[in-house]
């Protein structure tokens, strides 16, 4: 009986492992293809074999403009370092401001009692239902009026506020016992102190989850920077890399080399915080 059970369990485990391996392979294939293509030459870049016949590491120094592009025999007109910095800077700035503003708003919705609070919160959440594409022209017009076109703040400030972030952190803050606030108030703490010293540390899993999600989203943002910027010096990587796709042909091997370098910060951030990301979302999902 025990042997039979153990055998069935082994078979079930084997099947599950096999299924997960296949799924894992399917998910990782685009990444493997991306890395492999970054070491291929142009002539074989769109061929499906993973391992290059004539592997080359030159695509990386070409993208970094350390080497000449062999066909044109000159260095490409790319500002890779600048675009890299811009991507990190914009993602960092957006994340910092969005987490801060969301936390402040969430505190107001979760811990303060004021007339119409829940109605205002519902109204705030309702903004999530408006498709972003509908808001593109009005938002862009707003940026024009504020003279924010072609500026860093034009990219950061409009996305420094998030209904989703507010919702997520509100759920966390509602799970913190009100008794702590009351005790702090008795000890003479004001709202500012309660916010920073009591509620924020206890909402840490939610803050980390929001930080990771915002950073990943901002780092990859494409459409808003595309329409906001005309000056190549301000481009993030996502927009700058389009310079490798021109009417002279798509330089896929260089795009892949740039992409491999581009996603490095994302992988680092995700690897460090993935534990908090999953647990944070689960926690935010069940409490409140």
């Amino acid at each position, binding site marked *: 009986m025990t042997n039979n059970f153990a055998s069935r369990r082994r078979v079930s485990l084997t099947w599950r492992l096999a299924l997960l391996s296949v799924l894992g392979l399917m998910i990782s294939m685009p990444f493997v293809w991306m890395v492999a293509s970054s070491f291929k030459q142009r002539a074989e870049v769109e061929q499906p074999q993973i391992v290059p016949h004539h592997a080359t590491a030159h695509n990386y120094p070409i993208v970094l403009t350390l080497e000449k592009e062999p066909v044109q025999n000159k260095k490409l007109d790319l500002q890779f370092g600048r675009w890299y910095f811009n991507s990190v800077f914009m993602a960092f700035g957006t994340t910092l401001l969005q987490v801060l503003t969301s936390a402040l708003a969430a505190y107001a919705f979760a811990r303060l009692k004021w007339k119409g609070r829940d109605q205002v919160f519902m109204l705030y959440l309702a903004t999530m239902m408006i498709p972003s594409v509908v808001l593109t022209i009005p938002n862009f017009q707003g940026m*024009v009026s504020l003279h924010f076109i072609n500026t860093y703040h034009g990219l950061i400030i409009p996305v420094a506020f998030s209904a989703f972030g507010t919702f997520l952190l509100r759920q966390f803050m509602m799970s913190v016992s009100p008794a702590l606030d009351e005790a702090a108030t008795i000890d003479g703490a004001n709202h500012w102190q309660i916010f920073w010293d009591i509620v924020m540390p206890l909402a840490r899993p939610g803050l980390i989850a929001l930080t990771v999600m915002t950073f990943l989203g901002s780092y990859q943002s494409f459409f808003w920077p595309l329409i906001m910027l005309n000056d190549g010096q301000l481009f993030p990587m996502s927009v700058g890399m389009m*310079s490798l796709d021109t009417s002279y042909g798509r330089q896929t091997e260089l795009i892949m080399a740039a992409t491999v370098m581009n996603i490095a910060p994302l992988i680092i951030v995700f690897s460090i915080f993935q534990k908090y990301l999953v647990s944070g979302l689960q926690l935010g999902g069940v409490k409140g």
Partner: protein
Amino acid sequence: MKKLFSICAVLFVAMYAVAQATMVHPKEDGKVHLKWATDPNPARVVQTSAFGTMFPDTAVAVDPNASGDSTKVIVQCATGTGADLMDVTADKMQSLVEAGILLDLTPYAKTLGFDPSHTYPSLQKALLVEGKQYAFPCNVAVDAIVFNKKIFDDHGVAYPKPDWTYDDFVRVSKELQDKPSKAGNKDIPFANNDGNGFVNNAIVGCGGQYFTADGLHSTLNSPEVIKAVQLYADMMYKDKVIPTPMDSANMSAQGGWGSGGLTIFSGGKAAMVETGRWYICQLPNFPEMQGHIGAVPLPRVGDRPSGGACGARGAGVNAKSLHWRESLKFLQYLASPQYSKIIVDDGDSLPPDPNLASSGKALVNDIVPDPEFHQAFVTAINNAKPIQYSPFIDAAITSRWYTEYVQKVENRILTPPQAMKMLAAQIDQQIRTNLERRPDLQKKYEQVTGKQYTPDWS
């Protein structure tokens, strides 16, 4: 927590200061600096610098606009902040004009030397919307059949000759299929690079068009158009000389030929491809192809002369640009022989100035020194016609529906007559709806027909 946020805030401010401090601002040189929304391909460096030489008081810089995507241009121009100059193609021109984005160039074109008479007669209509000029070509696109001489030699098949017919095309393709490769290579006669383009060329070759001259009815159900689409379908499914979409997918999966027809051709796996002269810009990426390519004009249909569709990537001026007067200089530059010479040399399609494309010899450059290759494109542009769109329906919608129905034929969901009849009916219905809803179109109807618009006009 407060400390962490404070550190991050300081870091953010420091990064902002570094970002601002390291920005390179254009020097105050007294010049007017124009922005040109176009794809940032390497040839732009030479093109913009030559403009600066011709007009020293004006400079133009590229506002990178990838792959002809017009979203950025539309959003920016709609709010009055777009680039001074922008790329325009015939199928997008009408929408841009209706949105008030493009400047009417007619009052200035003749005086400044960039009116339609400065480019190919076959292309002149494509620069106009309702008789007014809104663009001047940057380069001119027309297709020919480009072939790989190595594959023809390997199979022992004679190269195609000008003045050939579609029957000859099928015969040559079958010969390539039937005669084995001496080197034992597996290749195909034709790489299907762009089904829509192939059919468009065949439509013009058969004497068809999308619309009647007044634009009030679609002629996509005409015998000429149906014949063209049938020709395409037959080559895929009856003669089996053009890869079907399924064949192309299988090639990608089995043989490593990639997905695009040009990739297949450039990889030396297809004997022929239908493409423009711009293909040679990519040749330096495929050194094994150099010295081995030839070109012939598109095949004729029956007794009709060889002919295909032509088009242009033109430049238009942003009507809300503060520098629209200076932007006109750029169009003068595009019409100049200096600019056309750059296009001849870099191989980016045909130059806008027909005088520099008078013969294959005139187009010879370092990439392809064979005059016969270039002559195919000279013949093609002389016989080409642009696809005509209707002012009563958005050209982008027409193009999208056309693509959908061509795909239905490619995938054998519909026969060519069924597909084209349904497409024409759909377009005609949309024209009727547009006319019912839009008084401006009703006025246009009255101008075109000389009759008063009534709801039962059709």
